[in-house]
């Protein structure tokens, strides 16, 4: 069993690890044998203005998407855990529909909507599309965080004279915080990585995946793209490990606030 697990990990990792390997290889051709160590592809990548512009766009879109979808996810997760909402299961199914529709269909249908409404394509339309696919992720993360909280905590706060808003702010929000942070990180990464919907909706702007896509056609630009890929690999690994660490720490803390704990 352990042997299988190790083989499986090799299958998962080997293809991905070729990116950093060849990003340090001193040759335009991505082939064996390796011809020496260089950091020139990283220098080339960092001096590429179009790449930096696309990176800026992706950061902007990613942060706006993360914020929007986490707020929307929090509202729904709170509504479904705090109140007995008739048809709650149907509402939840409706919000998770984007997971079950191919991205290309979501992309073209939003394109049609914007076209009919006479709205221009811009980073704003990309943010709308990304928020749509990120809301299901946000709801899932936040539901699992809010489920099973002792409702009497918030009731106690109301009895002690806080209004609904302050009760939320001083009781629910701190309890949900680890979930909120991991939802923000998760939705940011999903948006940052998303290509197809952005490809349809970005108009003349480019996000990082759109930029990468445009570079894949030029063989001489590939090593710099590999360098970029290696950099993304390291950055997102750090982000994911941090998010998971936060979530597991949150789960341990949460036990004190669970019903009957």
């Amino acid at each position, binding site marked *: *069993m*352990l042997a*299988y*697990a190790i083989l*499986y*990990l090799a*299958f*998962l990792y080997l*293809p*991905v690890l*070729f*990116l950093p390997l060849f990003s340090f290889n001193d040759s335009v*051709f*991505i*082939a*064996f044998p390796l011809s020496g160590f260089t950091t020139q592809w990283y220098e080339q990548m960092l001096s590429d203005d179009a790449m930096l512009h696309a990176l800026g766009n992706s950061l902007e879109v990613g942060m706006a998407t993360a914020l929007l979808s986490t707020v*929307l*996810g929090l*509202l729904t997760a709170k*509504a*479904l855990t*705090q*109140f*007995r*909402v*008739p048809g709650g299961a149907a*509402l939840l199914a409706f*919000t998770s*529909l984007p997971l079950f*529709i*191919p*991205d*290309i*269909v*979501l992309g*073209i*249908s*939003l394109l*049609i*909507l914007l076209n*009919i409404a006479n709205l221009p394509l811009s980073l704003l339309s990309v943010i*709308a599309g990304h928020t*749509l696919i990120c*809301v299901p992720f946000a709801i899932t993360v936040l539901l699992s965080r809010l489920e099973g909280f002792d409702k009497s905590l918030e009731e106690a706060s109301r009895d002690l004279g806080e209004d609904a808003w302050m009760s939320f702010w001083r009781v629910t929000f701190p309890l949900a915080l680890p979930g909120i942070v991991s939802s923000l990180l998760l939705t940011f*990464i999903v948006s940052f*990585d998303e*290509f*197809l919907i952005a490809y*349809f909706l970005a108009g003349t702007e480019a996000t990082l*995946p759109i930029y*990468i*896509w445009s570079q*894949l056609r030029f063989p001489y630009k590939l090593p710099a*793209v590999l360098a970029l*890929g290696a950099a*993304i690999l390291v950055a997102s*690994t750090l982000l*994911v*490990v941090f998010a*998971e660490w936060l979530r597991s720490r949150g789960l341990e803390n949460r036990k004190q606030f669970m019903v009957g704990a």
Partner: protein
Amino acid sequence: MTSAQAGMTAKFARFYRRSEGARGFALTSPTMLVMLAALAAPMVLLALYSFWSQNGYALDTRFSLAQYQVGLGRAGYRALFLRSLEISSLVTVITVLLAYPMAYFVAFRVEKSKFVWLILLTIPFWTSYLLRVFAWKVILGYNGVINSGLMSLGLIHQPLAFLLYNPTSVVVTLAHAWAPFAILPIYVSLEKIDRSLLEAAADLGDGTLRRFFRITLPLSLPGVIAAAVVIFVPTTGDYVTPSLVGGSDGMMIANVIEVQFDKVGNWPLGAALAMASMAAVGVVTLLFVSALRAAAGKIR
């Protein structure tokens, strides 16, 4: 405000405070509005578009089934539909079969460091999808990693041309890219299994294999079904993988849908192709899930 109006308002306020449903709906209404505007409305428009036609630059909004006749009638499109479904079915089966033992290992054999294993298994998934797919092009290409590696080892003298640009390379790439989506749901359903059921089966004389097929597999079926659906639906509509590693033999339906919205500019035809592929995916998914449920029922 008249006193009658004030009375109504007060009544409504009382109803609102008392009704959990109303407060729940109010709280979730912003999310629902966004989902209606960004999901439901575009889907309705997509369906409408598929019944219209393109007349040069103008849009003919009279109801017509012409797009479906073209989309389903032309042999080229039919072949692409079939190939897309074939490729994604194969990807689903392979990914789930490969992932099951891995998920089983983490759920039943790993004691303390489950968390580390789960992170290890998901990290490759968080690297750019585009670049993960592209990595396979680099590996399988004519001057790629495998060919240049084998040549520099002296094992072959000509690069192998059959590695890239065919349905097989699309299947391999997708099976790699979607692996975490199979592992996680299967792991969760295995982890939930009450261990005492397994002990009971063993005490009653079931061997390891029999116990697996009678207890573990049926109880993990929800995870298997979730994994299969979550992989099958998006891979049928995948655009990046067939574009990068499929070549002309590995093209899928998303490639022709994209073309209709890009260069040729026949949006109604593209909309009809999209509607038809969603319908096809829906039907196959339902058949697949009910077949799997029936098969699981027979085991017991």
